[in-house]
């Protein structure tokens, strides 16, 4: 729709603007909720920014892995370097989520703050940030949906096919993520046992993503067998969510002395 926005006569990527806005509102949300889990402001800000760095690195690495055979072809034919590939690589959400969580846990351990308190404080912000980011995807025309009569034409997009009405699955996902955000906000209004808030998110987003992937049309994201790579990951995350909801409390109870 609008891949580029003019700000004081400078062309800026609309996608980038929405990512920055998403991160800012997510940070604000986590900051306002920090007292529920007794998290210090310094620790929260540090962990959030480090998690953001991890999300960027993870998102890029995921993208790079999916497009690696094509990168090798470009490297052989044109001398395209790995660093150039890293700088040019796009972002894949699941890679960003995994990278963000890994960096968040490492940061919490390094600055010696309770990990689960930090995870539970930040997690509800993730669907909110993601919802705003998906509006950015809609602006850029990436992550587009299947052709349909009531779809949207992305004639200005450098990614989506032109002259075809495509389902705005980015906006549908954004709406679903907002619902998930409000549900998590309600669930996280009080302190919860370790793992429950994470399980809520994993199962909730896993279901959303698994279903919406059937309506995606961008084959670049990778297909493996009957399902897309993101659908396989979604199934894994739903299973992981079930583990954290049902089995993790029992394991934790056995490890914690009475």
């Amino acid at each position, binding site marked *: 729709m609008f*891949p580029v926005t003019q700000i004081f006569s400078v062309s*800026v*990527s609309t*996608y*980038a603007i929405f*990512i*920055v806005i998403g991160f800012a509102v997510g940070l604000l949300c986590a900051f306002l909720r920090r007292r529920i889990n007794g998290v210090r402001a*310094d*620790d929260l*800000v*540090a962990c959030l*920014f*480090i998690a*953001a*760095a991890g999300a*960027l*690195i993870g998102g*890029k690495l995921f*993208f790079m892995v999916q*497009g690696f055979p*094509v990168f090798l*072809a470009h490297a052989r034919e044109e001398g395209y370097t790995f*660093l*150039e590939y*890293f*700088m*040019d*690589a*796009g*972002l894949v959400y699941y890679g960003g989520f995994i990278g963000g969580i890994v*960096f968040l846990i490492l*940061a919490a351990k*390094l*600055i010696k703050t309770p990990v689960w308190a930090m995870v539970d404080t930040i997690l509800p912000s993730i669907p909110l940030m993601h919802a705003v980011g998906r509006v950015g995807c809609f602006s*850029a025309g*990436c992550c587009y949906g299947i052709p349909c009569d009531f779809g949207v034409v992305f004639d200005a997009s*450098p*990614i989506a096919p032109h002259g075809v009405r495509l389902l705005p699955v980015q906006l549908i996902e954004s709406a679903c993520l907002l619902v998930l955000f409000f549900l998590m906000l309600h669930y996280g209004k009080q302190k919860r046992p370790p793992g429950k808030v994470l399980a809520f998110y994993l199962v909730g987003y896993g279901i959303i993503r698994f279903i919406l992937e059937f309506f995606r049309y*961008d*084959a*670049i994201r990778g297909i493996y067998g009957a399902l897309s790579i993101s659908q396989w990951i979604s199934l894994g995350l739903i299973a992981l969510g079930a583990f954290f909801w049902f089995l993790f409390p029992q394991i934790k109870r056995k490890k914690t002395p009475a």
Partner: protein
Amino acid sequence: MENKNTFAVVSLVLGIIAVVFAFITPLQIVGLICGIVGLVLGVKARKMQPSGMATAGFVLSIIGIILSLILLIVIVACAGMFVAGSLAMANMLG
């Protein structure tokens, strides 16, 4: 006492490096890593002995991370879309 000051000094230095490298393509990733390490040390320094230097290191590291992320995302959002388009084209052409 020495340890606390060392953390604050290193955090400040890494914060400055993070800010500077954020503006030098393709060193944003180096700036990002320096910012992360500087931020961790800044938080530790502020916990052990709050000081102006520790706070400056904390703040500069955050600024360095923000600038690196923004500039990396802007490059990604522009070039990543180009690459995604190229890759999609390559896939279609088989």
